[in-house]
């Protein structure tokens, strides 16, 4: 197989950080080359260099036998290197075809857009992807998975020989991922070289030809996927042996019911749901996307209005009409989207940790006692091992795992005894995942009750004491961890049982 693109000893430094240190990558025609590494390993930096967003400090990039250095993203695109970022870059109010051809619309008579031809060409490209999408549909009206296809189509419209995909599945459901993989395989058959970046080690099995691993900005290895075990990959990514993906359970569920939910419902989203949570217990909540897990959690927390039902905390009935009611009852909620719902990104670590409980660090007249506040945040930065140069660091600049820890610290400081973790490890790298599991285990061991919503079945099976499966807005099953299997959960989740 011929080499399409090779990265030879590229380095890139930012003020204070060496983001890439002499790294290598070789992409062949018609292969899916998976690039793995924890957050901060330098994957995104390399992608940005390849696509012309950044320029390398040293080293060479050889593309189709010639050394290249792209100065802008457009230059890279024109040369045939397409990139699909983690976040979709589409204009929601334009049509599918308009999005695909944005910036290179076919024109007639020199200046008017040839809409008919654009739509025809769009159909052509979409057909290549086996995607059933109307070119005239508005992007905002189609499903996220289809939007992802439009992104791929956009990249292909430049006749790309190289396609870079940065965590393309993070917003997709299982079925949608299947669709995407079909497309990737067909592109591979057509000779396109694909660089595929992912955190999800399980999913790459299906598509990976070769795997390159980076760690802390340095090149570690390149192998055929078949020659590697999952354990070996993880070991190389984190640089240490991770014999177990989950920490040994230290917590033991008690008989004490810390939370009881009776017939709580969100109109139009979920049916009536009832369940209990014990002190010292982790209750895993599994289900497919759209099963109503987050909706139920938000209703319990008072973030969205309920259509009836009762909530008991430590046996006492509490009225929860707002997040404040829930917080005062000792309930904390960690959203699945911490950037949108969990953190004030422009504010400091300290501000975020004390946000839900400023009363504790201020006088009755409302003056914040800054020395107390700093003490609190220092305590949590230390006990949760939040990696930061200073407690005054703006949260935006932290890695995903450390951001998640800041949200956890917020609820711990608020003395929450019932914690709802909604997708606690989404967008968090392997090493930090383990730390968050340990934290959850420790919290349960100290008597807290945890509801853990997760779409990753290994996580559900690895951490839970009991498992609640939701399907189409209703509680389909509640089972003990003993005897629970992925198959059983999936059956309930799909509504087959």
């Amino acid at each position: 197989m011929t080499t399409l693109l090779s990265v030879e000893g590229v380095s890139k430094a930012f003020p204070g950080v060496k983001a890439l240190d002499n790294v290598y990558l070789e992409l062949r025609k018609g292969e899916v080359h998976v690039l793995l590494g924890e957050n901060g390993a330098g994957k995104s930096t390399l992608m940005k260099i390849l696509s012309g967003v950044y320029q390398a400090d040293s080293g060479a990039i050889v593309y189709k036998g010639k050394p290249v250095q792209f100065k802008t993203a457009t230059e890279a695109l024109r040369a045939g290197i397409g990139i699909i970022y983690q976040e979709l870059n589409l204009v929601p109010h334009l049509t599918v075809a308009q999005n695909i051809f944005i910036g290179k619309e076919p024109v007639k008579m020199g200046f008017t857009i040839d809409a008919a031809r654009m739509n025809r060409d769009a159909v052509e490209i979409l057909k290549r992807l086996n995607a059933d999408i109307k070119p005239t549909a508005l992007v905002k009206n189609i499903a996220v998975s289809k939007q992802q296809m439009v992104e791929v189509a956009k990249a292909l419209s430049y006749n790309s020989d190289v396609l870079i995909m940065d965590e393309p599945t993070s917003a997709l459901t299982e079925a949608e991922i299947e669709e995407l993989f079909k497309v990737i395989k067909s592109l591979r058959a057509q000779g396109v070289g694909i660089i595929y970046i992912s955190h999800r080690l399980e999913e790459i099995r299906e598509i990976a030809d070769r795997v390159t691993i980076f760690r802390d900005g340095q090149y570690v290895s390149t192998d055929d996927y078949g020659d590697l075990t999952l354990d070996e990959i993880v070991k190389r990514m984190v640089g240490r042996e991770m014999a177990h993906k989950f920490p040994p359970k230290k917590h033991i569920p008690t008989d004490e019911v810390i939370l009881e939910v009776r017939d709580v419902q969100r109109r139009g989203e979920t049916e009536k749901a009832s369940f209990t949570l014990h002190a010292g217990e982790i209750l895993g909540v599994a289900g497919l996307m759209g099963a109503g897990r987050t909706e139920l959690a938000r209703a319990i927390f008072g973030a969205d209005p309920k259509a009836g039902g009762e909530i008991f905390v430590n046996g006492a009935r509490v009225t929860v009409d707002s997040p404040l009611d829930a917080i005062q009852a000792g309930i904390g909620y960690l959203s699945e989207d911490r950037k949108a719902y969990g953190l004030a990104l422009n504010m400091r670590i300290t501000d975020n940790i004390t946000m839900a409980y400023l009363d504790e660090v201020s006088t009755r007249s409302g003056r914040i006692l800054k020395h107390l506040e700093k003490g609190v945040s220092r305590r949590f930065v230390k006990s949760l091992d939040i990696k930061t140069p200073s407690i005054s660091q703006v949260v935006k600049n932290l890695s995903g795992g450390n951001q998640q820890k800041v949200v956890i610290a917020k609820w711990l400081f608020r003395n929450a005894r019932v914690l709802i973790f909604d997708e606690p490890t989404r967008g968090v790298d392997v090493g930090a995942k383990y730390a968050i599991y340990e934290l959850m285990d420790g919290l349960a061991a100290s008597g807290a009750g945890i509801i853990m919503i997760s779409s990753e079945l290994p996580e559900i099976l690895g951490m839970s004491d009991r498992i609640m499966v939701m399907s189409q807005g209703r509680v389909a099953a509640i089972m003990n961890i003993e005897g629970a299997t992925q198959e059983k959960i999936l059956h309930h989740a799909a509504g087959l049982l």
Partner: protein
Amino acid sequence: MANEPLPAGTAMDDESARLLNADLLQKFAALAGLVALLVVFSLIARNFFTVDNLINICRQTTTIALAGIGVTFVIITGGIDLSIGSVLAMSGVVAGMLVKDWEWNVYVAFFAGALSGVFVGFLNGAMVNFLRLPPFIATLGMMMIARGLALLVTNARSIPGLPESFGDIGNGALGTTYRLNARGVEVIGFPGIPHAVILMAVLAVVFYYILSSTKLGRYIYAVGSNEEATRLSGINVVKVKFFAYMICGGFAALSGIVTMSRLVTVQPTAGVAFEMDAIASTVIGGTSLMGGVGGISGTIIGAFIIGVLRNGLNMFGVQGFVQQIIIGAVIILAVSVDQFRNRKK
């Protein structure tokens, strides 16, 4: 924070030093601009750097600074208030009519005028909170309503013939000294600090403190940084936004009272487009229209930059229209510098 013990496992290294520097730079870039203006004008215009003129500048800057303090609160929550100029006129009309037609005590009338501004702020807050209107639209409507009311009740005529005490805030000064001149006639020595400037300075300090050191202030930043995350942290976001708009309305009204008091006449047509001066001072001072970032000290500096520019250009004999062009360019320059600095980070 330099002398406090550091948490174990973290290094107080270049990073925090760099952050600290960036923060200082942000603050002092505007201040350095102000100092540079002062130096330049002092060098070209001989009468510029005199006690009389500096006090004059302070007086001229007071109204912008007052309105700027108020709108800083709203802008940090991510909102905007376009009704400031109209509230300025309306509050003056309220105070003037209460004094003239109802023979109220001047200070009680001033207080009532300020309250009318707070009330308009309350209405703005209600529209933003409950009707879920974008702040731009809500306050645009209010801009027209308040101006229309002020013109309606006065028939668009000014209210002259107010008692002398009506001019106390705008014209009075503290610590005026007199001396005998060569011919033995008593003349003013030190002109004194104008009452309005003292009022502005005291309020600036108080509201600086509120914004930087109280729960309310922290919540204002939090709402502007991420409203939904703030709500989910159990904070009454509705209340916070009400406070911001009411503070803004109150300051706009105060600014109106100072303006009318200075003229000892109520002008229902005063302050058209004045909100733009207030917003400009805020933005020049580094407050982001996106919300979550900014502060009172920057706004005061921004207000003085505008004040000094106007005064200096006047003294230099620059035509009013040209002044507008220059101030417009300064706003663009100041925010560009900010953007450039942020991008480099």
